[in-house]
């Protein structure tokens, strides 16, 4: 069985605008199928774009940035800072006397700002009730599919430094 149509000598308009009403069902179906196939091509283009981005990806270099003095934040307290650029809000949470964690404040669902819910000891997004673990930023509940990007911290001379982002793809 051949898959390709035979080359036709009829003008194109005859193919696209049938004379008989019965033929219209075929033309409509063929055109709709063409539309679906083009949509499928758009999906492929999206996948190829992701492939190209990941093949030519170079790991970004992050600045070492002081974000707080060691005792500036009380246990259970929070400080908002921007890292790695001024447009990237992040949250620093002091979870114990010697332990700190920091995450991007942008929810991985639709970028609402997450906050620290002290009673539940988790990060919460008020937009669609997305909850994240304070231990590693993983999703506990709600529509987000990805963990919150984490800010790696270092303590140096009584200063907390942000040194890089972890778990961030783009």
């Amino acid at each position: 069985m051949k898959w390709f149509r035979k080359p036709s000598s009829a003008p194109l308009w005859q193919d696209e605008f049938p004379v008989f009403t019965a033929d219209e069902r075929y033309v409509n179906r063929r055109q709709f199928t063409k539309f679906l196939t083009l949509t499928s091509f758009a999906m492929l283009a999206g996948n190829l774009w992701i492939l190209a981005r990941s093949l030519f990806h170079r790991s970004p270099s992050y600045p070492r940035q002081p974000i707080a003095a060691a005792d500036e934040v009380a246990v259970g307290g929070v400080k908002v800072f921007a890292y790695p650029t001024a447009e990237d809000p992040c949250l620093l949470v002091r979870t114990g006397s010697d332990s700190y964690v920091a995450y991007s404040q942008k929810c991985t669902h639709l970028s609402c700002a997450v906050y620290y819910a002290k009673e539940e000891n988790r990060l919460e997004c008020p937009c669609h009730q997305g909850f994240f673990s304070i231990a590693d930023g993983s999703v506990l509940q709600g529509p987000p599919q990805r963990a919150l990007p984490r800010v790696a911290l270092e303590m140096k001379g009584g200063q907390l430094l942000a040194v890089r982002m972890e778990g961030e793809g783009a």
Partner: protein
Amino acid sequence: MNTNPPQNRGLTAIDGAMALIVLLLIVQIWLLSATLESYLAGHREAAVPGAIISGILFAACLGLYLFVDRIDSEVRKG
């Protein structure tokens, strides 16, 4: 004896092919969103299999389109 009137010939095959394309498209849309999510989460290893499978699904859709196109031209030209 074939009781299907000539002007309906091939319609079932075309409808079947269309239903299959829709199914393939649903899988492809899911694949794109899953690959994107994993790329954004920093897992770049999903990009290659995602692109290959998406290419296979597109090739299947294109094959089905050519099939529909052929039936259409055959039936309408008698």
